[in-house]
């Protein structure tokens, strides 16, 4: 499988803090790849570096062969590389269906599409995807009135609506009721298998990431510590030490 996303020697510092130090990794097309690491190890920062949320100090990011490090977030999103947020970001004063409608791909937008009204097919697709994540009954509620976990699910559905080629998910199961987590893992896998979306997932829940990912990268103190198949990572001495040492 060829790499859809390649990160090469990316370094990002905030004042004295080196949040990402010379990180290199690659995400094969069609795969589900995990990213783990203790709190503050630089996982979210790496996502931000990839999608152009902030300029990186050095290194390169390539998506489907295109160099990203000079592009801004919306441009990168329109190329088909999307991210969700750890703190969950939705449009609070809009209802769920509206949140979905505005998440349609914006690649072909022009001044004429500004005026367009959403055809019934779009609402239907939005409702189908809301059903897919289990939010159909809530579709007319304001997004702000959803629980944190429900907002997380809405954000996932919005990402699917955008039809990305690759999706970076920042802790998709955080705050989700444990009894629903298996269902969510199943949906993530289906998004990958059925919609063909490559997934790159930050996750603290070890059971989830072992279950989900085909290959896992582990960050510690901003540096890539180890990478390998889930079983290998689970038993890697350095990874265990990093987690234990962090607490």
């Amino acid at each position, binding site marked *: 499988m060829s790499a859809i996303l390649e990160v090469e020697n990316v370094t990002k510092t905030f004042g004295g803090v080196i949040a990402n130090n010379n990180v290199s990794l690659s995400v094969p097309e069609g795969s589900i790849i995990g990213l783990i690491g203790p709190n503050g190890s630089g996982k979210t920062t790496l996502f931000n570096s990839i999608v152009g949320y902030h300029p990186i100090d050095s290194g390169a990011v390539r998506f489907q062969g295109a160099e990203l490090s000079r592009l801004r977030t919306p441009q990168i999103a329109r190329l088909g590389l*999307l991210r969700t947020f750890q703190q969950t970001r939705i449009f609070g004063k*809009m209802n769920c269906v509206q949140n979905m409608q*505005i998440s349609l791909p914006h690649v072909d937008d022009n001044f004429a599409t500004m005026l367009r009204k959403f055809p019934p097919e779009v609402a239907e697709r939005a409702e189908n995807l809301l059903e897919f994540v289990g939010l159909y009954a809530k579709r007319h509620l304001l997004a702000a009135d959803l629980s944190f976990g429900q907002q997380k699910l809405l954000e996932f559905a919005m990402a699917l609506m955008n039809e990305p080629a690759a999706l970076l998910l920042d802790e998709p199961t955080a705050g989700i009721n444990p009894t629903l987590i298996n269902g969510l893992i199943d949906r993530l896998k289906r998004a990958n298998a*059925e919609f063909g979306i490559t997934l790159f997932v930050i996750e603290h829940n070890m059971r989830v990431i072992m279950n989900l990912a085909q290959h896992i990268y582990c960050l510690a103190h901003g540096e890539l510590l180890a990478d390998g198949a889930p079983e290998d990572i689970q038993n890697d001495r350095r990874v265990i030490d990093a987690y234990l040492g962090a607490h």
Partner: protein
Amino acid sequence: MNRRGKTALYVAAAIAALLIPQIPLLQPYLIQFAFLWVMILFAMTWDVMGGQMGYNSFGNIVFFGVGMYATAVVQRDLYFTVEEYASVAGGEQAALTPVEYLIGLALGMGSGAVLAVVIAALLGSGILGLRGHYFAICTLGLGIAAGELASGWDYIGAGSGLVTPLLPDALGERGPFFFYLFLVLAMITFAALKRLYAGQFGLAINAIRDDEDKADALGLHATRYKTVAWCVSGFFLALTGGAFGNLVIFIDPTDVAFAGPTFGVWMVLMAILGGKGTLWGPVIGATVFHVTQEFFWIYLFGWQRVALGLLIVVVVVFFPLGIVGWLRERWPQRFGEVVDEDARRVQVSLEGER
């Protein structure tokens, strides 16, 4: 209420408004109504930015003034030289034929609106990159700067202002003329905004209001939407300004055209009073504000500004969501989104999606 019922209500409201001048009791107040339509236009155009998009602009008054001056200048320069006009300014000799007057007014308002759109696009590309409070503060300076510039520019009368041509007698009384002019303008503006809000534009600027980072992350052309929103706002406000100059006849650079401390602040207050970011909020807010202000003026003369200030405090403290926002909170079924849980459940057909 169903779609049919709503349309009927809109048509009825429009007809009722159009018939006001036929009611003898109200005939002495037509100019007052014209001012009311202006207030509604102020609140509606401000709300595009401040309410629907969450970008509080204190500089919208610039478009009002630009439209006013542009219209007056076109009206003057079409039929007079500056010197001729100065010598007859305001006098009976400046009277035009009805056709001349209407052509001048239409061309003037049109050029004012185009000019406002150009200014909004230029200013927007400069300062719409700023977020939230920074944008608000930046716009605060715009109105003041524009007033200063106009006060120093001889071509447009500088500090001594500019007089607009008088309404020719053949076009009837001032009352009905300006009543209808502003009513039609307000109706067109309302309909245009309603249409814009109903499509992708509306959702996009709402999304920018709720979380611009998220909108960026989804690939939305946020800067483009913000600029267009300001252009739309500026366009209708400039048309309003163009007609307003003719209503008041005398354009003072700081007290009428770029009147930030009065009109510029009122726009914001009226939209907040009625309910920011709602279709009817600005209309209701402007009406309540204008009527209250008139009553204060009549019954609390000398204290009217104090009463107005108190009203504002009361509104902000007790009705932070405005009248429409408050209604929605009290009676969500009637005024908010309808939640139709019984509606047919959509077949899950994800397998067939791609």
